[in-house]
């Protein structure tokens, strides 16, 4: 049983009179609790694919199922609710809310998206603060912590709703190598602990090696898939 099933997905962007095909018939399946990476050069379609999986955008054609839901036919409000319940996001620029503390940033999805009761919220936020090693920094604002710490907060925020899937678009692009490894290790640890599927995109070859399944994209096409055990054709 797969968590994500993509069948012949195409995505076209129209720029004036010109139509650009960003994805050209991509098909794949991802099982639950996987640690997956989409790799490829700039413009290969990694971000577009993550946006489609994350219900931030819709494919021009093809079939896409995430957590047993046909996400193509969700309207705006349904998409927002689906994301709030099933998907966590980690952004390249961390995207923490600057007026909220570390604690409040992690708490935000529980409070503003899921309306979880206070006791349960406190428990879940405290557990994640502990897990990402940010308990001492919980009252600091984003501008008072480092880039690596911000991304750890972002990981905790993505996981706090117990989503089935976490999407991370170039999560280590703005971090130094050491911190980037630490963030990837943290993501893996979280996957092991919470059984959440992690999908991240990157073009950093050293980071790619940390993924258990690697999908290679080029010019909007899936060129191959590699697992820790060996190489398969796409």
């Amino acid at each position: 049983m797969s968590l994500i099933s993509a069948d012949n997905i195409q995505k076209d962007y129209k720029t004036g009179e010109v139509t650009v095909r960003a994805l050209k018939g991509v098909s794949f399946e991802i099982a639950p609790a996987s640690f997956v990476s989409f790799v490829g050069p700039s413009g290969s379609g990694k971000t577009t694919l993550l946006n489609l999986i994350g219900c931030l955008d819709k494919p021009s054609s093809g079939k896409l199922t995430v957590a047993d839901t046909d996400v193509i036919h969700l309207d705006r409000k349904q998409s927002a609710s689906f994301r709030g319940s099933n998907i966590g996001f980690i952004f390249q620029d961390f995207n923490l809310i600057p007026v909220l503390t570390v604690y409040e940033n992690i708490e935000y999805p529980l409070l503003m998206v899921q309306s979880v009761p206070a006791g349960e919220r406190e428990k879940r936020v405290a557990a994640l603060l502990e897990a990402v090693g940010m308990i001492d920094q919980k009252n600091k604002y984003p501008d008072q912590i480092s880039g690596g710490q911000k991304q750890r907060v972002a990981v905790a925020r993505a996981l706090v709703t117990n989503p089935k899937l976490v999407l991370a678009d170039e999560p280590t692009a703005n971090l130094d190598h050491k911190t980037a490894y630490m963030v990837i290790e943290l993501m893996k640890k979280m996957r092991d602990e919470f059984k959440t599927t992690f999908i991240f995109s990157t073009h950093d070859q050293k980071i790619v090696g940390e993924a258990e399944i690697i999908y290679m994209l080029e010019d909007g096409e899936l060129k191959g898939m590699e697992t820790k055990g060996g190489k398969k054709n796409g």
Partner: protein
Amino acid sequence: MGNLFKIAIRNLLRYKRRTLLTASLITVGVVFVLVFISVTGSFKNMMIGQITDSMLGHMQVHRKGYVASIENLPLNLNLRQEDVKQLEDMLNKQAEIEAYSLRIKFGGMFSNFVETTNIRLNGVYPDKELKSVPLLAGRVTEGKKTLDKGGIWIPELLSKGMKVKVGDAIVVVATNKDGSVNGKQLIVAGVLESATGPGGRDGYIHIEDAMEILRMEGMEISEIAIRLKDFGRLNAFSKKLEALISKELNQPDKPIFELHTWEKLTPFYTIANMIDVMTFFIKLMLIAIVLISIMNVMIMAVYERIREIGTIAAIGTLPGKILNMFVIEGFCLGIVGAAIGNVAGIAIIYTLNLLKITYNFGQQKGLILQANVYFYDLIVISATVIIVSVIASLQPAFKASRMEPIKALRHV
């Protein structure tokens, strides 16, 4: 909801200078409107008070058709004795009435035995008149504040022009409704300070002297001036009394009486209306200030936070909640501006009253400004500011809530 307020307040505090400037602008607008309303309201109330309490009364009843010819003081349109009796019976039953005064109004000649001039006279029962227009006694600047039979209160201008003093004998000559002329010698009992408006230069004599001069066999009354216990109930009571008197019909089944409130008897009502119109436009200015400043600041806030909007939308915040976040920011700005404006406005009005600023109204000099701010005004102005703030925030908030997360996240 509490968390939305927390986020809104923190976002406002994030741009302290901008928030301060916008809130200050609203505050200045609220202060300006409050001070304007209280000062003009004070002037308007004083003007209405002077006119109703020293001359007109709150309302008047005449014989049908009298007011159309009021400038001529037509004696043939006076109320007959039996009509007056009927009317008095009706008025005595009305609990809302504090007092009423019967008046015979007529024009005549005033002579100091050397010079002669014209005069408008009111024949009244002094005790009833003073209860119906209580500021009248205050207008007596020289002489007695009571008027006995054989005495006359003359206007100040006449006293100066004709060089007549309190205690001097004068003669009043008038033509009655049949055209015969009669005169009577009276003693000047008092000099009345001139007041602006119709009736402000009238003289007063006892009603029995008026009947004697006009050779009336029975009492024929020009008007009945009515004073209410509560001026605020003027419109409600005038409707009630109008309904009652309209039932009294003469032979051809036409109404005998007509009722007019003070507004219809003096041109100063137009000035009072102009003050209201000015106040309305000042309020419109306040609305414009709040609308433009809040809309401007909220448009800026949305523009600066596009990526944040994208982030919260991406992680599942519903569009309605995003809309609320921005609306609440505008709401908070409105509340702060209105609250500070109210406090500052009340302080300024209190200071104005302490300074005892004086002004003139027509012939009356040195009236002290008594600016009042009513709770009702505070509520209306605050509610207007807050509602306009919310309305002004709606467009930017709606724009934020409708943003596509993917586009917002790409925004640089």
